[in-house]
Structures are given as structure tokens and as C-alpha cells.
């Protein structure tokens, strides 16, 4: 008993420190960092892991001449995890959330909830100047600009020239080509993001738009998913149950897809251009054989999924003025070039595509610009998150898709979600 003289044996200075911390925590519940050393305005940006983003931040900090200092706060890797953290802070009116690097699909939701600030005046003009129309459209909601496009993204069909002489143009051809390689006992998997997450939604939406349908009507009020969409589901089912599919398809995210490709297990992958930068850094031998082709279609040419990220200013930010300025710098042509060249994120400003340094690092430049012309957006609606959750749940695992039944289920559940009525799985 004597070992334990009284309840928690905490020495006095420790207590004082604790009390200090408690009062701090109470006094400023939304305290984000203890960075008290800087006198100027701190702009907290929340960003998913992006290897060279800190060099972009450093550049803008030096350009700010002490007007503000951007502080980088890291979000989880997966989009759902990022959104969850941002949304929770916004719901709690977190004034420490100045700037967000967000997925283009969240703009409608956060704008509708009034959680991000509209871009107006000079800030708005500078964003619209020279920015590609497709990405700019994803930054708008109800004809107002709520975000500044940072990068855009399209998927291409990447293949190995030593195994594939001519790239297939449709999913049917792709499956046939892979099965022919399988017959020859060669590596034959086609890597697609088929795990139960946003990547599966991206795949489904791309096939639906390629088939000439869409998930929602243009105004976002009603479910479309007509018989053409069933064709998309048939293709997914056919692919998933063919020998072209990696057996771990239902567990494949971007990372696994690229790893299988790098490991030589797959001669094909359908994915974003970051693989080019990644292959260049990690596998120079493979880079020599790496080729690309447009996104495969259903009957004719395909429509690539449209990805990308935007910067938005949080509603409760105490320094919106500086936040807009910081965002403008973080997405200026020079910043976008760094992101494009080092991290493989395609720019949203047209002029960057003509930059000599950019062209040298982006042999697939034309393919990207071309794909951007026809790329299919995911539905623009405040309910996007619910729809995404439903789609990825209903379609997982892709082998189990039963086209007609799956389609009816999607239609019914998405219609419920549009009324705030559904239960999320």
C-alpha cells in the first residue's frame, strides 16, 4: 500500500503546467497551433499529403513579405477522411480553418451549407483569368465562384509498349487484349481503382458518361441513370469477372494499382498522370516502356473522369482577406508548375501547358488537354457525399454487380438521398 501515497502523484509544477494548458484549451477552443513566435497573420491551410506542397508554401510565404504566413496542416490521405475532418471543423465553427485544399466534388456541399466564402471582385477576376473552363466550372455553385482551381486531373490508359503493340480504344477491346496476354502466359492484369471508396465512384461515373448517360440531371435535382447507364454496369461486371481484372480488384486504390504496375504484374492501368512522375522517380527502366492512350470508351471514344483540387476560404476564418491572397499565390502559374512537375498534378491555368519546362516533363501534355475537352464531371450537388457513399457501397465488390438489379437499387437509394431521407451505410 505504501507504494501509492495518495491519488495521482503529480508534482506541483506539472499541475501548474496542466492548468495552464487547460485554461488555454478552454479559452481558445479552436486553437490550432501554438505558434506564438510570429507577429503577423497566420493562414492555416489544410491539405492532403502532397510531397512538394511545402516548397510551394515556402515560395508564397517569401512573396508575402510578412503580410501573412501560411502554415501547412496535413489531412489524411483518403478523400473521405479529408472531408470528414474539414466538415467537422466547419460544423464546429473553427476559426482556425482559413484555407482548404479540397476535392472538386465538395464545392456544392460546402457552398450550400454556407461554410466557404464566395470569391468576388478582384480575387474572382484573377482566378477566372486564363483558367481552363472545365476546372473553373467545378469551382462554381449556383453561378457563383466558391473556390479557386488548383489542379485538374484526368485519367488515361497507361500501358507497356513491350507487351501491348497498339492500345485498345474500348473496354471490350481492353478485356480482349488482356485475355490474349493471359493466354500467352504473360502479365495481363488491368489495374483499375475498384476498392470500396471514391475511386470506384470515379470509375462508375466515367463509364456512365462514356455511355452517354449521367447519374443526376444537369440541375442536380433528379436521378437519370437510364438504360445507357445499365450498359456501363454491364461493362464493369464483364471486366470484373474476366481474367483482365486483378484478383485484388476489390481492394485496389490508386496506390495498389500503381504498385502492381511497377511490379510488372500488370501491362495496363487506368489512372491519373501522377504515375508518370512516380515511375520517373522510382523505375527509370519501366519509364522507357510506359505509354498512354485516351480513356477507353464503351462503343466509341471514352470520356475520362474529371478530378482535381480547389482552394476555398473557410467561413469562420478571421483573416479572409489574407486567405484569398494566399490562395491566389498558391495557385498562380509558378505554383501550379511546381505541383505539375514535381508531384504530377496537371495545372488548371492554360498558359502553364505552354511552359517549356512543363512540356519537357509532360510528354502526355496533349493527351491531357484532349481528355479535358471531353472529361465527364461527377454530379454537382450538395448531396454528393451521400451519393458517393451509396454508389461505392452498392457497386462493391464489382464482381457482384447484377446490372438491372444494381441499377434499380442505385436509382432508389440516390433518390432517397436527394431528400435527406436515406440512411448512410
Amino acid at each position, binding site marked *: *500500500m505504501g*507504494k*501509492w501515497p*495518495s*491519488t*495521482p502523484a*503529480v508534482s506541483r509544477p506539472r499541475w501548474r503546467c*496542466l492548468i495552464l*494548458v*487547460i485554461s488555454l*484549451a*478552454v479559452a*481558445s*477552443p*479552436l*486553437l*490550432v497551433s501554438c505558434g506564438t513566435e510570429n507577429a503577423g497573420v497566420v493562414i492555416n491551410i489544410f491539405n*492532403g*499529403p*502532397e*510531397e512538394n506542397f511545402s516548397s510551394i508554401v515556402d515560395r508564397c510565404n517569401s512573396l508575402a513579405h510578412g503580410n501573412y504566413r501560411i502554415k501547412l496542416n*496535413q*489531412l*489524411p*490521405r483518403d478523400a473521405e*477522411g479529408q472531408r470528414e*475532418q474539414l466538415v*467537422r*471543423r466547419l*460544423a*464546429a*465553427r*473553427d476559426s*482556425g480553418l482559413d484555407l482548404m485544399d479540397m476535392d472538386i466534388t465538395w464545392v456544392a456541399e460546402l457552398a450550400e451549407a454556407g461554410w466557404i466564402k464566395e470569391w468576388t471582385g478582384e480575387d474572382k477576376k484573377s482566378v477566372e483569368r486564363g483558367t481552363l473552363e472545365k476546372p473553373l466550372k467545378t469551382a462554381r455553385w449556383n453561378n457563383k465562384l466558391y473556390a479557386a482551381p488548383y489542379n485538374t486531373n484526368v485519367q488515361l490508359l497507361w500501358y507497356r509498349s513491350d507487351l501491348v503493340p497498339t492500345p485498345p480504344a474500348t473496354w471490350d477491346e481492353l478485356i480482349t487484349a488482356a485475355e490474349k496476354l493471359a493466354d500467352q502466359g504473360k502479365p495481363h492484369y488491368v489495374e483499375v481503382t475498384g476498392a470500396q471508396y471514391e475511386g470506384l465512384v470515379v470509375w462508375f461515373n466515367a463509364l456512365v458518361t462514356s455511355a452517354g448517360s449521367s447519374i443526376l440531371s444537369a440541375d442536380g435535382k433528379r436521378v437519370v441513370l437510364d438504360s445507357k447507364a445499365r450498359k456501363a454496369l454491364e461493362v464493369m461486371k464483364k471486366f470484373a469477372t474476366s481474367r483482365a481484372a486483378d484478383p485484388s480488384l476489390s481492394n485496389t486504390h490508386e*496506390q495498389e494499382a500503381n504498385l502492381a504496375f511497377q511490379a510488372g504484374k500488370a501491362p495496363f492501368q487506368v489512372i491519373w498522370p*501522377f504515375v508518370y512522375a*512516380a515511375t520517373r522517380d522510382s523505375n527509370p527502366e519501366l519509364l522507357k516502356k510506359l505509354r498512354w492512350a485516351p480513356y477507353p470508351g464503351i462503343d466509341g471514344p471514352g470520356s475520362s473522369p474529371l478530378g482535381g483540387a480547389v482552394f476555398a476560404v473557410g467561413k469562420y476564418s478571421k483573416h479572409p482577406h489574407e486567405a484569398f491572397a494566399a490562395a491566389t499565390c498558391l495557385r498562380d502559374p509558378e505554383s501550379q508548375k511546381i505541383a505539375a512537375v514535381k*508531384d504530377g498534378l496537371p495545372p488548371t491555368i492554360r498558359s502553364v501547358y505552354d511552359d517549356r519546362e512543363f512540356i519537357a516533363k509532360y510528354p502526355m501534355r496533349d493527351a491531357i488537354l484532349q481528355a479535358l475537352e471531353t472529361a465527364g464531371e461527377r454530379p454537382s450537388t450538395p448531396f454528393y457525399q451521400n451519393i458517393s457513399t451509396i454508389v461505392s457501397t452498392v457497386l462493391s465488390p464489382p464482381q457482384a454487380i447484377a446490372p438491372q438489379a444494381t441499377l434499380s437499387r442505385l436509382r432508389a437509394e440516390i433518390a432517397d438521398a436527394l431528400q435527406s431521407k436515406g440512411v448512410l451505410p
Partner: protein
Amino acid sequence: MTTGQAVTGSKIRWSAINLIVVFFAITPVLWIVSLSLKQPSTFTDGSFIPRKITFDNYLGIFRTGGFARPLLNSIGIGLISTAIAIVLGVFAAYAIARLNFPGRRVMLGASLLIAMFPQVSLVTPLFQIERSLHLFNTWPGLILPYVTFTLPLTIYTLSAFFREIPWELEKAAKMDGATPFQAFRHVIVPLAVPGVVTATILAFIQCWNDFLFAIALTSSDSARTAPAAISFFTGASQFEDPTGSIAAAAVVITIPIVIFVLVFQSRIVSGLTSGAVKG
């Protein structure tokens, strides 16, 4: 001699059985330790024992600053919640074990109800209430539910212990002119210390373990506790997996538990069983 052999035989048999039990109990823990000592390049070798030992994962979690603050939150919130729960619990348990008053059974019933209550049912209303009271993402915002959910355990454990105390001493003190409160303060409290220690450990373990409140009622490092922070670890880049950091942080927050268990094994056992079975 035959009985001696039989004893040796059964000793061997028991040793074997015990070995199996110990193996099942600690292998998963050793696996996390092993993972935390592996170099990033050897994560994917699938080997149970690290080929080459490195402490980089431990240095990493403290150097990048993503873990020190949540660890402080965990310790601070855990200690404060435990302290409050113990103080309130001691009062209530003394009354329940010792005094006859209306509402005794109600109190026990209410504690039992809360002990068995699904925490998730509280998360939704608390999320909303704390948002409007500006308690969301603060220490008090977590301390309140922690106190509430450790109180039943504390009350049960303590009242079970208090019943074992020789109360004649208190009677004697009263006869000497002490008020009921003085008798409580000077006679009973010192005798109750072992029970209080046990309840303290159990309550702290419970606070330390919580995950659901920690992720639902915090949004940043100002109040997020270590278990929640671990689940939000990210790799340094898009291609780096946080496996090593998660394993290292997991080991760090397991150490206090292992120490408690090693030092207070018999107390924890008696606390758990007396609180739950004897009531």
C-alpha cells in the same frame, strides 16, 4: 515417490497450458512492437521479427509534432477525468455502502444504466450540445463524458471495497465525539486507499482507452487524444504508408497500461471482479 512424480507431471502440464495462454495473450502485442521497430523498407517482408532494428519510427512521431500534443491531451484529460470521477465516486460509494437513505437504489440503478449505455447514443446529442456551448474540441468537452462513463465503474468498485472496511473504528471515532464527516475523513479515508487506488487505475484505463468520444467530439490537436490522433496519422507523402508511425505511437500508449498491469495486477483483478460480481 509416485505422488512427487505426479506433482512434477502436472506441473509440466500446467506450464504447457499456461504457456499457450501467455502466447495468445501477448503475441499480438509483440507484433505491434516488432512492426514499430522495422525499417520502412522491410514493412512488406511479412516477417514477425524485424531483420534490422530501428528507432526512427519513434523519433519520427515526436519530431514531426503530430503526436506529442495528443499524448499530452490524453494524459491531461485522463488524469483530470479520473480525479473528478474518483472524488465524486468516493462520496457516492461511501453513501451507498454505508448509509441508509432514500434514492440509494435509484443511484445504483442509474449507474448501472449508464455503464451499459451505448456511447454512440450520446455522441449525436453531445456533438450538437457541445457545438452550441463552445465545448466542442476542448478538454472539458471530453472530460465531461469521461467522468460520466467512469463514474459507474468507480461507484461499484469503491462501494464493494468500502463494505469490507471494519466500520467499528468509525463507530469508535463517533463515540469519541467525531461528526459523521470527521469520522469519514480521518478514519475511513485512510483505510479506503487500496480501493481508491484500484478504482483510479480502472477509471484511468477506461479514459485512456476511449476512442469514440475522442474522434467525434474533437476536430484538432487542441483536444484530440492519442488513440484518435493515431487513427488520423498520414504518411509523409502520397506513397508513404503511416504503418511505422502508427505502430510506434501504439506502443507508446500501451506502455502505461503494461506498467499498471505489471505493478497492480492483483488490485486490478480484485477491482474488476468485486465491482462487477459482488456488486
